[in-house]
């Protein structure tokens, strides 16, 4: 059976997962993967799949994996999509429930303007076409945490379509080998979140919390342009950064503000796509990648052993590291979609189509939103690379860690040290310390000013590199001290007095004549630091 080598390399808290084909990385496999995509007529951007093809036993045919994603991002908004209830994480159960959220008969949905604007912003940031007219539909299914018996969504005509998302994955053994890929975005739709069911097994009861019921979601549908867990996870990570930069979602996976379902299939390159399975409710990027890679491996294994892949919904068990079929008693659901009759079509305008004399409170101008889009992560990274001569992979790391970029920029502001030096210190030493103690940037005992001061000392050669490291360790341990204080307390200053230095050198050389030559070089090096 084909060996799927999974390499897990840590970049701080973030991780990169690469599936490595036993044989050629740049060889035939990748090319075939590409061909098969073109055949599907879907790939708009020429891209090398990371490793789309699995070579199986000698002489046997290869496999290509196809991965698509459905991502639900909770819209960051004070109130819900169709009601005035507040939105808070971890509020007391059923404390944020309006009559509409509880589906009291006779209540009607009223669309939240903020949610529409968030969808437009996200659509624009993801290069989508914004539909000036979009529609709402009802999707029916009976579930205890879905009070109305249907979810209001945008099935027929969503608010944004045909976008794309560029993301990067590491392709080689070195982190510097980064490759940019693009995944097409089929659509972004506005929809309601459901409530939460809490199953009390011992008492065989289900408790319902409707606080989340009706919270606005952006469903972002990514086309099956990905071929492994790392690609999917990297795409999700990039989307997360974009949503956070826009402020349209906090996109915190641990708090369920970003939830991912993955559609996965495998096939022989050049042949039709295989039967796909859906892995639901992946709530961390790491599990997403693990689940996808497991599922690819599982499907190949099944097929190679003459079994079939069932079109089914599976869940990922993070403890066992495998996917399992979800119990779905009723088999395939027919959602009996129907237009939502209580919401007129959602009309958006641009400056050209804005009706004269329209009340700005009643209309949404796409151009107005476009003009006010904040800087996106891609642009930020580009600027970092240009402005500071930073390596691309460093720009990624800076953005990936919450608060790290801001920390970096604050250090830059206050130090005379070269940006490259700052980058190196922030990414290697500072981040390393954070990781070691599992801290977030805002929990760091070292402030940007302190690091800036330390780098200034280093820059004007007041201390040596190794002394700087010592100072940093001390800064980390004893909050409140400045680098200068530590330097003088520990007597870490470099000797600036030429004569004194020469005296020391002479003493050393005289004491160790046999290593004289070697020692001179070291001493020279020492003073040059």
């Amino acid at each position, binding site marked *: 059976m084909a060996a799927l080598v999974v390499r897990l390399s840590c970049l701080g808290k973030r991780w990169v997962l690469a599936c490595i084909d036993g044989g050629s990385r740049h060889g035939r496999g990748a090319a075939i993967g590409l061909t098969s995509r073109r055949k599907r007529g879907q790939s708009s951007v020429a891209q090398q799949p990371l490793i789309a093809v699995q070579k199986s036993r000698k002489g046997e045919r290869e496999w290509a994996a196809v991965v698509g994603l459905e991502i639900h991002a909770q819209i960051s908004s004070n109130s819900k999509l169709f009601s005035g209830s507040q939105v808070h994480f971890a509020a007391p159960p059923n404390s944020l429930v309006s009559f509409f959220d509880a589906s009291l*008969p006779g209540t*009607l949905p009223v669309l939240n303007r903020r949610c529409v604007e968030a969808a437009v912003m996200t659509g624009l940031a993801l290069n989508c076409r914004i539909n000036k007219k979009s529609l709402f539909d009802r999707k029916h299914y009976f579930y205890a945490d879905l009070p109305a018996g249907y979810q209001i969504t945008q099935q027929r005509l969503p608010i944004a379509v045909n976008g794309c998302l560029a993301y990067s994955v590491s392709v080689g053994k070195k982190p510097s080998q980064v490759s940019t890929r693009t995944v097409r975005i089929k659509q972004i739709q506005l929809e309601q979140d459901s409530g939460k069911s809490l199953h009390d097994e011992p008492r065989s009861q289900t408790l319902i919390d409707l606080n989340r019921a009706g919270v606005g979601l952006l469903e972002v549908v990514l086309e099956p342009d990905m071929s492994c867990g790392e690609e999917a996870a990297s795409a999700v990570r990039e989307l997360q950064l974009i949503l956070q930069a826009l402020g349209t979602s906090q996109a915190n996976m641990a708090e369920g503000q970003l939830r991912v379902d993955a559609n996965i299939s495998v096939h022989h390159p050049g042949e039709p796509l295989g039967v796909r399975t859906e892995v639901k409710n992946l709530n961390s990027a790491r599990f997403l990648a693990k689940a996808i890679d497991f599922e690819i491996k599982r499907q190949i294994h099944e097929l190679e052993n003459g079994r079939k892949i069932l079109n089914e919904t599976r869940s990922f068990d993070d403890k066992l590291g495998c996917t399992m079929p979800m119990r779905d008693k009723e088999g395939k659901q027919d959602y009996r979609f129907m237009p939502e*009759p209580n919401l007129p079509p959602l009309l958006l305008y641009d400056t050209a189509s804005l009706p004269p004399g329209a009340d700005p409170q009643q209309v949404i101008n796409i151009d107005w939103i476009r003009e006010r889009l904040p800087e996106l992560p891609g642009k930020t990274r580009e600027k970092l690379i240009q402005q500071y001569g930073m390596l691309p992979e460093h720009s990624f790391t800076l953005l990936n860690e919450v608060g790290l970029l801001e920390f970096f920029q604050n250090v830059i502001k206050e130090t005379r040290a070269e940006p490259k030096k700052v980058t190196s210190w922030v990414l290697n030493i500072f981040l390393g310390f954070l990781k070691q103690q599992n801290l977030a940037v805002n929990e760091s005992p070292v402030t940007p000013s302190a690091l800036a001061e330390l780098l200034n000392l280093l820059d004007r050669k007041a201390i040596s590199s190794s002394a700087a490291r010592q100072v940093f360790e001390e800064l980390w341990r004893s909050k409140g001290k400045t680098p200068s204080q530590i330097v003088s307390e520990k007597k870490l200053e470099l000797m600036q007095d030429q004569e004194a230095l020469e005296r020391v050198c002479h003493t050393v050389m005289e004491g160790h004549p046999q290593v004289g030559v070697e020692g001179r070089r070291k001493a020279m090096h020492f003073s040059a630091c």
Partner: protein
Amino acid sequence: MLGRTLREVSTALKQGHITPTELCQKCLSLIKKTKFLNAYITVSEEVALKQAEESEKRYKKGHSLGDLDGIPVAVKDNFSTSSIETTCASNMLKGYVPPYNATVVQKLLDKGAVLMGKTNLDEFAMGSGSTDGVFGPVKNPWSYSKQYREKRKQKAHGENEDSNWLITGGSSGGSAAAVAAFTCFAALGSDTGGSTRNPAAHCGVVGFKPSYGLVSRHGLIPLVNSMDVPGILTRCVDDAAIVLGMLAGHDPKDSTTIQDPVKPFTLPTFADVNKLCIGIPKEYLAPELSSEVRSFWSKAANLFESEGAKVIEVSLPHTSYSIVCYHVLCTSEVASNMARFDGLEYGHRCDINVSTEAMYAATRREGFNDVVRGRILSGNFFLLKENYENYFIKAQKVRRLIANDFVNVFNSGVDVLLTPTTLSEAVPYLEFIKEDNRTRSAQDDIFTQAVNMAGLPAVSVPVALSNQGLPIGLQFIGRAFCDQQLLKIAKWFEKQVQFPVIQLQELMDDCSSDFEIEKLSSVSLKQ
């Protein structure tokens, strides 16, 4: 006093001839005397007396809230009323007390109206007889009228009169009966396929269905969201206009209401009939139409013509597809709207708790009657992926064609359409239940439901009594959002026909002093 119109009694209140409390008490006592009509599901006596008292204080201070202050009104039991049970005549909602008022209810209360109670209907407004609710059928007050009884005596051969009472039509039969029996001066109904106009025609009152979007649906427990409108039942067109003036306008809680502000209005007493063009849709000359109704219809057309109006035959070519189309769209939305009744958040919940699914199934089986369950079943069938295109989408296309039929006719210069409201006068209950609900609804909505699919305003105006001494109504259909013009024409027509007042003295001997009923005046359209 009770026999007066809303406008008349409003004047009496303002002039101090009667106080709101006296008026309220008279209505309450009449409600008790007519309890056998089964018009009310809940009589909100305490609330009503309290509201009347407050109204009285306002009048004393000279701070009346306007024409509706102190006026007893009734509301169909599918409008949410805060702290008053709202049942939809269903086991599913027995005991359900909404925590909020429907917008229309709130507007009535804000204008000082006195809420007498919640009126009976077919379960979830699904029916055309007001016979299929869990609280039993509503009896048509005309069954007990002098006019009807006299006619029956001539024919009756020892039949048991009590078993021959007539249906009110529906589904707002309780509201129609409440207004017809003088227990209130105006009532809210709902109209999805004719549910306000049909019982209005059978009970000899005015039944007005406003344009879709003119009046808020917030708080109206839906049947078909895209067709439902709150309806108004009154004893004359003027009264309907007063109530409409209080209810119309944008509601931020109902996104389908119009944005433009609606100004209150009063109807002029005179319409320039000679400038009007009245359309008579030829497709409405159905074979099942009773000869009497047909004859009144043509007399009405002649009346307009004789007063100088242009009366022309017009065509609404897609009329014959209308009922089937209505059936598909109605049941589909019903299937969706009824999904929320699962016993979890409110309403009935069964005792079975082996699983959530079993609980749902038993709750819904116990909570809904056969009619509701039948519509849910067909609606879900039409919405299935494999059927959606063939049924729902097609029905939507036909709906568009039907709406366009009206647009075309109005664009050709027609001001209003004149049609029958129902095929015949009200039938006895025993006759009515020989056919099932579905057949009855299909027959009885024939002239009314197309209007709902097109979102147009329409009003049923009582015209005359049939040979049996029962009311017959005719329907006027207007252009979308030309509700005022429609009512103006209806008012002129009402004045010409002088429909007789129901004579219930025998029934309510001891209340007869409350009635100041003119003698049956000459009816210009009498056969």
